[in-house]
């Protein structure tokens, strides 16, 4: 799922710190973001926008963090509104609902662990590419040189 790869160049101390922060941003936002899934995305988006003119290493990791948050937004929002409609509307708890929430929890946990791991590695200047998200980031985020 996660691959450590050689980046185009050796990132500097400051770059590693900022790149690592892009993942930390989404972690911190989880605290607020649990009831409101959009908060996670907004936090990473703001960080992404603030760093889009930064160096390639920083941009690359900001993009990977943002993309992962974007896909989590859809599945988390659906789960969130489903729960709201059970509490406040006529929906009842079904096996479909419980299994959806179970899968959402598994996906969120995987993402959480991966994010923590990546934040630690990027802080050390190690380039970590996620399965699918890494490929997608390589496609979107190109080196200016």
């Amino acid at each position, binding site marked *: 799922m996660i691959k450590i790869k050689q980046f185009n160049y050796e990132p500097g101390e400051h770059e590693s710190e900022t790149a690592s922060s892009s993942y930390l941003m989404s972690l911190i936002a989880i605290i607020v973001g649990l009831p409101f899934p959009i908060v996670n995305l907004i936090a990473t988006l703001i960080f992404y926008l603030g760093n889009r003119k930064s160096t390639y290493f920083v941009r690359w990791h900001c993009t990977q963090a943002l993309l992962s948050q974007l*896909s989590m937004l859809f*599945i988390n929002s659906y789960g969130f509104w489903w729960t709201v409609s059970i*509490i*406040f509307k*006529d929906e009842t*708890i*079904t*096996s*479909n609902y*419980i*299994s*959806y929430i*179970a*899968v959402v929890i*598994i*996906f969120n946990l995987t993402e959480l662990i991966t994010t923590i791991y990546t934040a630690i590695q990027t802080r050390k200047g190690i380039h970590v590419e996620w*399965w*699918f998200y890494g*490929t*997608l980031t390589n*496609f979107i985020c190109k080196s200016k040189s």
Partner: protein
Amino acid sequence: MKKIIIQGTIIILLFFGSWLAIAQIDLVKVFKVQKVTDNTEQKLGELFWNIFKATENENKSIHVVNSIESIVTQICKSNEIDREIIKIHVLNKDEINAFALPNGHLIVYSGLILNSDNQEELIGVICHEIAHIELNHVMKKLVKEVGLSILISMTTGNGGSEIIKETVKTLSSSVFDRILEKEADIKAVDYLVSAKVNPEPFANFLYKLSNKEHDATEYLSWISTHPDSKERAEYIIEYSKNKSTDYEQILSTEAWGKLKMELNNDRKTND
């Protein structure tokens, strides 16, 4: 690009695949969701009914109880409803009101029976309340207005008496939301038609009370808690059009007359 599409598709398939696979297990049963809900409902039903039993005067006259029981039995039989679920109680009170408590307790005030011009009007209101029970509206409303955690704490004896009092008030006096009311009205018409009871008097009852032509307006709890009565009467009439016209009476004219007479006598005695 091809790699991204393949990997993306695998992730999506993985998500939906695991969702569908887990959904094959009867998780509602595994987590005992139904059992917890049923137990809570049963305990709440007992709790609320005991409060009414202690504070109000229950009519235990054999004829009154038998008449109302036979109405409910007939409706249940014609609509394949488990008769055991509905526990009917008649309370001596002038208010024109009937309402459902959790776990199938159905309370009818004597004021409603006395102010019904014919048995079809009363049966219509009873059918409407049975529909609320059958469609699980009572628990839905309680969970929405009081919250499941408070309801569960009530069943374990930890609910404050103030909260319980407020909840009892909510059950007897406040309205279900519009969609639930309409659902119960339509279901009531179905019940009435299956039991060969003319649904038109039920609509007339709503019209009559909403026009406030009735002399008992100050006791019109059922109507004041069920707004838009005219609109409701209209869609009941509309829905019951083209239904069976071969209507019958559940209670004989004598039994209906005797029922009202007994309740009237009880009322005079109480006064």
